[in-house]
């Protein structure tokens, strides 16, 4: 083997860093996460079973209400709860993967190598976001299909394509919020990851995941207005339960697009600030 030939070729590329190289780096982030899924496949299956169990528990609430004397349309209530649980699981995965951008790498001891690589931070974070969306989407479709089959739910006229488009648009905002929470382990290595769950919990309360936003007190409804999950859930429920086409979802799509446009640059700015703080105070590596 000729080492000089190998390294010489690389050096030439170093002289002309381009968007193509950033794209290759982004693919590298996705590739690395796929390797990790493969290496932790049994854990992935275990976590999926846990998510399925959680979702089933929530959907059973609809049947439970009827069994205890309540009068509801069980099929519709179960479908509505199922949508909430699946979207919640999807959002949770995005937050979890993006928060792991720092937390997992710190645990593995690779964080300094990643942060000194010639890959711009936005591309690095978008790579994590791209994997999170890919992985979350596959998981959400599997979870939804499995529960639909389990409860033998009937959803005639559902527009799944429109629902997926709404979810895709909402995902931009979710990634932006996830990037903001990803910075927390940089600021607090011990408790940062847990702080991410607080942000997630706040979204759960105000966004109407399992109940209509109308039942919330006025001040909570005001917060729900800026939560992308509110519009995502509304849009997806309209598409699946009412069969509403995408063209009729301007009230959901536009707010989601606007929140996404704000959330991404805001998330990057917050992360940049956190990274700078960590580099000033030697918190990138715990002992450092």
């Amino acid at each position, binding site marked *: 083997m000729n080492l000089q030939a190998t390294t010489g070729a690389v050096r030439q590329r170093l002289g002309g860093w381009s968007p193509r190289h*950033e794209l290759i780096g982004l693919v590298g982030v996705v590739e690395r996460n796929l390797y990790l899924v493969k290496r932790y496949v049994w854990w992935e299956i275990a976590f999926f079973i846990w998510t399925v169990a959680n979702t089933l528990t929530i959907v059973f609430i609809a049947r439970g209400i009827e069994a205890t004397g309540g009068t509801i349309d069980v099929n519709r209530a179960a479908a509505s709860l199922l949508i909430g649980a699946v979207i919640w699981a999807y959002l949770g995965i995005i937050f979890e993967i993006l928060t792991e951008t720092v937390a997992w790498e710190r645990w*593995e001891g690779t964080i300094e190598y990643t942060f000194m690589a010639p890959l711009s931070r936005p591309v690095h974070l978008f790579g994590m976001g791209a994997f999170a969306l890919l992985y979350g989407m596959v998981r959400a479709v599997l979870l939804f299909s499995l529960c639909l089959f389990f409860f033998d739910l009937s959803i005639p006229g559902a527009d799944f394509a429109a629902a997926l488009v709404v979810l895709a648009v909402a995902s931009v905002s979710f990634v932006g919020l996830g990037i903001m929470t990803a910075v927390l382990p940089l600021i607090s290595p011990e408790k940062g990851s847990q702080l991410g769950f607080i942000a997630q919990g706040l979204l759960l309360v105000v966004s109407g995941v399992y109940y209509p936003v109308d039942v919330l007190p006025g001040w909570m409804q005001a917060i729900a207005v800026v939560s992308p999950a509110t519009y995502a859930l509304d849009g997806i429920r309209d598409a699946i339960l009412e069969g509403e086409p995408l063209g009729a979802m301007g009230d959901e799509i536009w707010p989601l697009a606007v929140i996404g446009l704000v959330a991404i640059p805001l998330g990057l700015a917050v992360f940049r600030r956190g990274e700078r703080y960590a580099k000033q105070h030697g918190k990138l590596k715990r002992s450092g």
Partner: protein
Amino acid sequence: MTSSFSSIPLPDASSADVLALDVTDLRKVFRRGARTGGRFSARRQVAALDGVSFTVQRGETVAVLGQNGSGKSTLVRVLSTLLLPDGGSASVFGHDVLGEAAAVRRLVNRVSVEASFFKRMSASENLSYAARFHGLTAGQTRDSIPDILQRVGFPRDRRSEPMENLSRGMQQKVALARALLTAPVLLLLDEPTTGLDPRSKREVQAFIREMRATHDATILLCTHDLAEAEVLADRVGVLDRGRLLVLDRVTELNRRYGADTLEDAFFAATGREFAEETDPDDDREVFA
């Protein structure tokens, strides 16, 4: 978090006047809460780097000797853009580590005392994603990764094995392979052989010598191993409590301090024995 898509000027053979490393009055202070009598008192300041100045010529190997806590790792972290200095300046081939961090990251790689890999992933997988971060496609690394692993003496039949199953020496060889794969113009070695058995240590040192002989990489070696510094470096510096006391050829150091060995010269320069290093300021280790 700077990102530049423009090409960066790389040193060529004719640019002999460009210094590989130019460090001037570099300072870094860490502030930590100090515990006295069970309560936290005022935050204590420790100068990890205290006005460090030196230059390194292209193709040169310079060793920086120092005890634990002397500031070696802080120096490496500042040069690899992982820590922001409080004062002074440092540039890599004319690119400032603070203002042109993205350009510096394309020129530098590092091998540290911890091999730092995703432990469940294999050597090939770890090298593969690291190569993507440096802009190398799968097609470009299909042959080069096996070649480089073979070159560092990594057994072919263990390439797919998780890193956690490998010995420290084996992991360190993969770390060297990772650095070589990305063809750094400046290679920062932070105690690369610490904790290795004598045989692995010799193998790693031999490979470092070969890298230097077959490439025009400039090497900054931070170590507390006097023999390693003497064997590998053109010039040796002594870093003590954040201050670079001296940097010269070993023969010159011995002459200056009237010493027979580098060890004697080291003691004469610092004015202390190894055993005296620990007590008065032993928490310095946290910072360096």
